[in-house]
């Protein structure tokens, strides 16, 4: 159950990104690199928002390229707009289980359990606008937990949080990912975040994605492009 990118070439206008790598299952991998190097482009391709120009993306040996985003074993959290503002937290989370208007009793209990797990019991009937930034992140994470997908892509969903809240969220993500045996890829701009939660890292720079490397080794002896970005 690993994510394999084989001779993958992504093209977006004049921009081009190559990748040939394998992310092991149940790993927590940071994706680091200068701005505009193509970290989000890589995620878009894995999630199914961007067709690849050539090469293969496969999960557990199954090629993903002809599956629409919703049918891939992939769940992605974006920087914002992860929750529908017109729905309650309970409804937002419940969408992971059913698209029907009413949840079954069993589903309702599952939503309740997962909200308790992320510390949002009491919040099921509130709208996102009534929640704090940290609570919104927790609600999005709760839905991720119910979605039953094995590969989580986190595109800096916690970047708007303060440092304390952010590290608290990262710890929570790591815990629940381990409980669910999920494989996590996380884009980050903060080397400390990577060191804290991600034993492995991918480096996206100079038109290619490479790795995975051991995070500490990569950050201690960064290649030139990364060193410039980190300001070493």
């Amino acid at each position: 159950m690993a994510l394999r990118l084989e001779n993958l070439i992504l093209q977006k206008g004049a921009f081009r990104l190559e990748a040939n790598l394998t992310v092991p299952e149940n790993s927590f991998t940071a994706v680091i690199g200068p701005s505009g190097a193509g970290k989000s482009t890589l995620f878009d391709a894995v999630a199914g928002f961007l067709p690849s120009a050539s090469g293969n993306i496969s999960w557990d040996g199954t090629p993903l390229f002809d599956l629409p985003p919703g049918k891939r074993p992939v769940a992605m959290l974006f920087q914002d707009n992860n929750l529908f503002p017109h729905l309650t937290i309970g409804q937002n989370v419940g969408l992971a289980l059913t698209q029907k208007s009413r949840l079954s009793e069993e589903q309702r209990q599952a939503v309740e359990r997962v909200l308790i797990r992320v510390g949002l019991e009491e919040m099921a009937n509130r709208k996102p606008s009534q929640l704090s930034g940290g609570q919104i992140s927790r609600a999005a994470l709760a839905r991720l937990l119910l979605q039953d997908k094995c590969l989580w892509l986190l595109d800096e969903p916690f970047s708007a949080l303060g440092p304390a809240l952010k590290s608290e969220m990262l710890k929570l993500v790591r815990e629940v990912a381990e409980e669910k045996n999920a494989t996590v890829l996380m884009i980050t701009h903060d080397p400390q975040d990577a060191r804290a939660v991600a034993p492995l890292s991918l480096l996206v720079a100079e038109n290619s994605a490479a790795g995975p490397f051991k995070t500490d080794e990569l950050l201690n002896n960064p290649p030139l492009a990364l060193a410039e970005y980190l300001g070493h």
Partner: protein
Amino acid sequence: MASRPVAIIAGGLVTALVAVPLAAVFYRAGGGSSLGAAEWSALRFTVWQAFLSALLSCLLAIPAARALSRRRFPGRDVLVTILGAPFILPVIVAILGLLAVFGREGMISQLLMTFGLPRLSIYGLHGIFLAHVFFNLPLATRLILQGWSEVPAERFRLAAQLGLSSRALYQIIEWPMLRKTVPGAFLVIFVICLSSFAVALTLGGGPKATTVELAIYQAFRFDFDLGKAATLALLQLVLVGTASLVLLRLIGPMSSDVGQCRVLQRWDGQSIPAKSIDSAVIVLIALFLLLPILSVFMRGAMGLADLPLSVWTAAGHSIQVALASTALCIAFALPLASARQGQTVALLGFALSPLVLGTGLFLILQPYTNPFEWALPVTCVVNALMSLPFAVRAIAPALEQAEADYGRTADMLNLTGWSRWRWLYLPRIRRPLGFAAGLAAALSMGDLGVIILFADPERATLPLQMYRLMGAYQMDAAGGTALLLLMLSLGAFWLFDKGGRYGSST
């Protein structure tokens, strides 16, 4: 966004509904006939009155918008809201109101007579003109007012710090804004006035004041000259079509929520002449808009008590037609708004002439059935098509915004087809959807157009019944009917618009 097949079916249906009747007119006419002097004169008159109406509306709207943009006074927000009313006001009701103020028996004539001056008459070109300005001055004012409120507040602060004279302020801030807004407003009004029918029918007529739309009606109803009707229909299509195309390149999406157009804090215009001019402009525009509407209320209240039964029957017809037409319009608008090509198709409604469409549908139905029995369904379809461009232009931006903001999250949840509408689009477009439905209902309720082709004593809508009462000089009954129609139109708009706002979050 929406599943393509649905959008394609809706687009195909709308195109067919527009094209087939047109083809029917040509087929039955055996081609068009050549243009005679009367047709040329109708064409000239149509363009000329539309040009003058648009010009005058814009010229008057500039000082009005300027005064509203920089003065605070009690009732300002109400006045700005009322500026939106003429758009959904039934034409025939407004005309009754205008007659009550400016007509031979109207308030101003009475006033003039006490001074021994001659009465006014508003039949002919200047009547058409007056009615068009009544409808479109508020529209122009709102459009220009919006332009003013989009000028960043910092510019006025900067101007105040630099101590710019009002002349310099005009050159640096106001003129560039007007140059951007006014041509759009002018063209919108020009296009609207090109298809003027009900106004020309009631206030114009005669060789000197006949629009192309009115000429189509006359060719069809009085002469049953299909060749002439077909030629005029083509003329109208080319005329309005060309103007609409130019217009579409110029204007952006129609906003459903012009809001109150916040008052700008400005430091100029504090001199006494500037203040008095602004006050005078505001008072005049308020009177011009409110007096006719108020007189409909005052006169109508008397007639409302004993309306003939025929009026209530017609009201029942109108409510049914309006509701069905609204449903049809929205059913077309939703799939069309979600596809770029669909948005273009919906704009056919701008370019089409209701009378051409009505004539065509009449000819299609005639071999098989008595077309007069189809008066109400035909009216319903034509009204839906006419409201379609407004509905699509109101809904499309919200739909695109919902997709841009939440489309990927919806993709991640595998929300497709109906589920995507149910969970994402419909909740996100509630407000513009309610607005569009309100517009469609009010426009259909007050429409006096295609129904008049199919006029038959048993199947009248309320505007047609009112037109007949006016024609029979039953002015009390006509007044009561006008009030009823006014309340139904505004009520329908209010209900739908409120429904869209109710419980809609962010």
